[in-house]
C-alpha cells in the first residue's frame, strides 16, 4: 500500500487583489522508505507543496481541493488537534536555514525532549536518553555536552545535524526536507546529505527532498519530480531523467548545470525567467520560454503521458510518441 | 549597549509614491477625520485672539462675581458658553488661548529636538568612532532617565534658583528649552541609523570623490532620504511634548495660572473637582485628550504607511 498519496492538490492564496493559485492539480505518491526529490526553480511551488502536506502553508494560503492520504487516512479532513499528532510524529520536517530554525533561547536538549514528550507519555529522563542517543547517531561529538547547549553555541552544520536528529527522534514515516543544505557551506553540504540519506536508509524512512540543485538529487533520491509554476511537469526515476530528460524545461535545467559546460564556454541558461504566480501564462506555463512551443501549447494545458522513460506533461513529447506509434503500425 | 532596536530600512520616496500615499490617506476615513480635527485645532489656536469672546489675560474680565458659573447648557448663562473658572474667566476663551500655548510650546520644543537630534545624529553617524560612541552613550543614559524625570528635575531646580515669581515670566521659554533638550536622543538615533545605512551606499562615495564636502553630502544627499521616519517622529513627538508640557504645568512647574496652558487649566480645575465645579477640569481635559488622540492617530497612520522602522522607547 502506498504510504503517501497526493491527488489533484490545488493550493491557493487569498490576496486582496483576488485568489492566486500556487499549486495546480499536483498528484504523486510515495512508498515506504522511498526517497523522492522535488526539483524546480525558486518560486515553482516546491516548498508550498512540502508544507501543504502537513497543512502548514503560511497564512493567506489554503488547500482549495484535492486529497492527501497517509496510509489511507485523509489528512485534509483532520482537525487541528489530530493533525498535530501527524506533524513531527509521522511526518517530520527539516527546514532550510538551521540558523533560523532552532529557537535561540531554548537549549538544544529541551527542544529535542519537547518533541518526544508532546507525542508520547515518556518521562523526561527516558526522553533525554533517547535524545542523547539520537545526537550520537547523527555523529555529534560529546552529545551529553551538546544536549545542554544553546543553538548559538553550535555551528551551522552541527545545528542541521541536531535538526535531523529531531526529525528522526520519533521514527517518523516521512521526512520532508526543504532545501536542507542550501544555507550551509559547500564543504558541509555533502556530509549532511550523506547523513540524511544514511539515516533514512537505516530507519526505513521515506524522504521528500525539496531542492533546486540537481547535483544533490542524483546523490540522494531514487525518483525525481520536476516542478514548474505550481505544476509537476516531469516525474520518473532519477537516473533516467538525468540521462534523458523529456520535458524541455528539465532539459534546460540540466544543460544549465555548470558541469555541462565546457571550459571557456558560456554557461547555458534557459532564456527568460519563471512567471510569477500572479500572471501565469495560458496553456502550458512554460511555453513562452520553450523553443519547441507550438500554438497548441499556448492554448491548452498538456496532460500527463508516459514516455517510456518518465511521465511528462508536454505536447512535443506527446506528438513524438504518436509519430513513433504511427511508424510502428506501418 | 542597548542597541536592541532594529536598524531601519529607508526608501527615498519619489513623487509618485507620495501621490500614492496621499490617495491611500484619502480613502482612510479615520485618518482624514483626524487630520480635519487637527487642522481645526491649528486654525483655532492661530485665530484665538480673534474668535475668543474674552481676553483671559485682561484682568478686567476677572470678575469674582462671575466665578464658577456652569456651562451654558446647565446654567443657561449665555455669556459663558462653557462656563467660567474660579477667577471668573470665560472658560471657552481660556481654553482657546491655552490650546494656542500648548500647541506652540509643543511645536517649538520639537523643532529644538529635531534640530539638535538631526545635527548630533548626522555628526555621530558620519564621523563614527569615538564621537559616535560618546553621543550614543549619552543618549542611552538620558533615555534611561526618561524625559519626564529630567524635565521635572531641571524645571524644579530652575524654579528654586530663580524664585517662583521670576520663573513664571520665563516659564514658556524654560518649558520649550527643557522639553526640547530632553528628547533629542530619539531623533539622533533614528538619523544616525539611517546615516549609517546610507553611508555605505555608492553615491556617497561618488559624491566624496567628486570633492563634495561632508556637510553638503549630509544635508543634500543623506538627509532627504530620512524624511519619512522624521515625519513620523515629528508628529508623535509634538503630541508627546504637549503631554509633557501639560504634566509639568499640572505639577506647578510649567505655565503659571495667570497665563494658563491646557495643563495648568486642568491643574487649576483639579482643586474644584471636589467642590462640584467639574467643568473647569473636565472640559480642558477633553480638549487635550482629543488633540493628543488625533495626533497619535495621524502618527500611527504615517508609521504604518510610510513604514519606517523607528527606534521604539
Amino acid at each position: 500500500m502506498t504510504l503517501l498519496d497526493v491527488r489533484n492538490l490545488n493550493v491557493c492564496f487569498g490576496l486582496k487583489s483576488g485568489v492566486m493559485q500556487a499549486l495546480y492539480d499536483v498528484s504523486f505518491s510515495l512508498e515506504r522508505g522511498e526517497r523522492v526529490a522535488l526539483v524546480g526553480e525558486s518560486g515553482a511551488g516546491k516548498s508550498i507543496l512540502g508544507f501543504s502536506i502537513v497543512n502548514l502553508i503560511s497564512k493567506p494560503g489554503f488547500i482549495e481541493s484535492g486529497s492527501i492520504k497517509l496510509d489511507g487516512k485523509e489528512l485534509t479532513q483532520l482537525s487541528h488537534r489530530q493533525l498535530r499528532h501527524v506533524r513531527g510524529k509521522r511526518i517530520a520536517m527539516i527546514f532550510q536555514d538551521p540558523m533560523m530554525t532552532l529557537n535561540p533561547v531554548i537549549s538544544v536538549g529541551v527542544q529535542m525532549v519537547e518533541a518526544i514528550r508532546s507525542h508520547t507519555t515518556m518521562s523526561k529522563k527516558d526522553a533525554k536518553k533517547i535524545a542523547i542517543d539520537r545526537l550520537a547517531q547523527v555523529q555529534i561529538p560529546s552529545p551529553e555536552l551538546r544536549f545542554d547547549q544553546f543553538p548559538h553555541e553550535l555551528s551551522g552544520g552541527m545545528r542541521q545535524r541536531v535538526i535531523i536528529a529531531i526529525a528522526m527522534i520519533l521514527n517518523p514515516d516521512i521526512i520532508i526536507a526543504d532545501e536542507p543544505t542550501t544555507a550551509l557551506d559547500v564543504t558541509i553540504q555533502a556530509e549532511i546529505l550523506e547523513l540524511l540519506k544514511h539515516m533514512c536508509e537505516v530507519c526505513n524512512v521515506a524522504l521528500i527532498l525539496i531542492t533546486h540543485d540537481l547535483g544533490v538529487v542524483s546523490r540522494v533520491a531514487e525518483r525525481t519530480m520536476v516542478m514548474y509554476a505550481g505544476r509537476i511537469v516531469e516525474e520518473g526515476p532519477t537516473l533516467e531523467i538525468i540521462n534523458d530528460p523529456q520535458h524541455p524545461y528539465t532539459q534546460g535545467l540540466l544543460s544549465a548545470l555548470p558541469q555541462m559546460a565546457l571550459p571557456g564556454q558560456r554557461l547555458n541558461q534557459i532564456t527568460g525567467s519563471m512567471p510569477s504566480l500572479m500572471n501565469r501564462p495560458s496553456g502550458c506555463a512554460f511555453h513562452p520560454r520553450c523553443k519547441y512551443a507550438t500554438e497548441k501549447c499556448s492554448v491548452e494545458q498538456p496532460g500527463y503521458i508516459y514516455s517510456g522513460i518518465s511521465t511528462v506533461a508536454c505536447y512535443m513529447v506527446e506528438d513524438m510518441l504518436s509519430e513513433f506509434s504511427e511508424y510502428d503500425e506501418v | 549597549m542597548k542597541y536592541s532596536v532594529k536598524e531601519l530600512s529607508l526608501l527615498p520616496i519619489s513623487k509618485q509614491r507620495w501621490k500614492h500615499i496621499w490617495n491611500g490617506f484619502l480613502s482612510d476615513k479615520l485618518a482624514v477625520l483626524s487630520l480635519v480635527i487637527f487642522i481645526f485645532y491649528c486654525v483655532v489656536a492661530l485665530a484665538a485672539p480673534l474668535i475668543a469672546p474674552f481676553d483671559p489675560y485682561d484682568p478686567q474680565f476677572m470678575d469674582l462675581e462671575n466665578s464658577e458659573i456652569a456651562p451654558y447648557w446647565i446654567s443657561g448663562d449665555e455669556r459663558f458658553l462653557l462656563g467660567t473658572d474660579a477667577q471668573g474667566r470665560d472658560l471657552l476663551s481660556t481654553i482657546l488661548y491655552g490650546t494656542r500655548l500648548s500647541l506652540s510650546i509643543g511645536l517649538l520644543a520639537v523643532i529644538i529636538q529635531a534640530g539638535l537630534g538631526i545635527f548630533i545624529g548626522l555628526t555621530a553617524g558620519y564621523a563614527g568612532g569615538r564621537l559616535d560612541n560618546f553621543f550614543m552613550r549619552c543618549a542611552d543614559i538620558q533615555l534611561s532617565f526618561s524625559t519626564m524625570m529630567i524635565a521635572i528635575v531641571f524645571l524644579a531646580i530652575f524654579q528654586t534658583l530663580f524664585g517662583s515669581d521670576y520663573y513664571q515670566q520665563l516659564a514658556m521659554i524654560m518649558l520649550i528649552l527643557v522639553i526640547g533638550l530632553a528628547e533629542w536622543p530619539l531623533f539622533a538615533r533614528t538619523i544616525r541609523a539611517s546615516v549609517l545605512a546610507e553611508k555605505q551606499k555608492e553615491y556617497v562615495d561618488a559624491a566624496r570623490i567628486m570633492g563634495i564636502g561632508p556637510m553638503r553630502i549630509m544635508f543634500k544627499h543623506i538627509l532627504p532620504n530620512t524624511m519619512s521616519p522624521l515625519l513620523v517622529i515629528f508628529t508623535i513627538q509634538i503630541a508627546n511634548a504637549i503631554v509633557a508640557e501639560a504634566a509639568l504645568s499640572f505639577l506647578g512647574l510649567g505655565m503659571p495660572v495667570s497665563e494658563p496652558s491646557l495643563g495648568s487649566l486642568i491643574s487649576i480645575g483639579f482643586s474644584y473637582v471636589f467642590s462640584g465645579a467639574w467643568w473647569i477640569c473636565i472640559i480642558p481635559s477633553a480638549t487635550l485628550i482629543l488633540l493628543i488622540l488625533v495626533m497619535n492617530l495621524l502618527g500611527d497612520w504615517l508609521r504604518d504607511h510610510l513604514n519606517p522602522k523607528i527606534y521604539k522607547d
Partner: protein
Amino acid sequence: MLIFLLRRLLQACVVMTVISIISFVIQDSLGDPVRQMVGQSVSPAEIEQIRQEQGFNDTKFEQYTRYAKNVLQGDFGTSYFYKEPALDVILKKLPATFELAFSAIIIIIMVSIPCGIFAAIRPKNILARFLMFSSTIGLSVPIFIVGIFLLYTFSIELQWTPSFGRGDTVLVFGIWETGFLTLDGLSHLILPSFSLAIALLPMFVRLIRSEMLEVLHSEYVKYAWAKGLSPARIYFVHAFKNTMLPIITIGGIQVGTLVAYTILTETIFQWPGMGSLFLDAVNRVDSPLISAYLIVVGAIFVISNTLVDLIYGYINPTVKLASHGL
C-alpha cells in the same frame, strides 16, 4: 559576570558623580545655609566667622569633596523644613513610593502580558480589536487625567474608595511602614496604583502585541508547529520567551518614566511618598532635601538598570554579561 559587575560599578560611579555635582550645585547656590542655621538676629561679623569655620569660604572644589565625603557617609545635610537629616526624611517616605510603584508594576505585568499575547494570537478577534482601539485611546490620555478621572468617578461620585493618603500602615522589620497588610491600606492603594498602571499599560500592550506578532512569523515558530507541539507550548514557551527580550529592555528604560509618574500620581492622590516630598521641597526651597532626593533616585536608577540587565542576560543565552551592559 565579575567583569560585568565591575563595569556596572564603574558606570554607576560616573552617573552618581554627575548627579552629586548637580546636587552640590543646587545646595551651593540655593539660599544661604548660614542664615538658615543661625536665623536673622546675628550680626554680619558673626556670620562671616561662622562661614569661615564651616568652610564656606574654601574653594568650590574643596567644598565639593567635603560634600561628596559626607554623602558617602550617608550625611546629606539637614532638611531646613523638617530639621532632620535629609536622608532619614526621604527613607521614611521610600516605602510609600516603593509600594505604589511595585503594585503598579504587578498590575502592568498581570494585565499587559495576557492582553498583548491574546491580541497577537487572535488579531482579528473582536475583543483583540477592541483592546487595540482602547490602547490607542489610552496612549493619548495623560496620566494625571487618568488619575483625576478615577478619583472623580470612584471616590467622589461612587464613594467606593478613599480619595487621599495611605490609610493605616503597619511597621514591619522595625523600619518599613507597609500598607499591604491592612485592609484600609490596600483600599487606599487601589486607585493610585491603577492610575499609575493604566498610564503605562497601553504602551506595553501594543509593544507585546507587535513583538509577539513578529516572533509568531519567525522560522523557529513555524518549525515548532511542524514538530507538532501543542499551541500552548508554542505560544507561551517558544514565542513568549523571545518576545520577552525587547520587552525587558524597554521595561528597563521605562523605570525612569515610572518614577516621574509616581510624582504625578502622588500629587493627585496626596500619597505621602518621595515624589510629593520632592515637590514640597521644591516649593519650600529645601535644598538638602532636593539634592538628597536626586541622589536616592539616581541610586534607584542604577540599581534597577543593573537588575534589568541581569534578568535580560538570564533569559537570553546569547548574551554574555561581560560584553553586555551600557
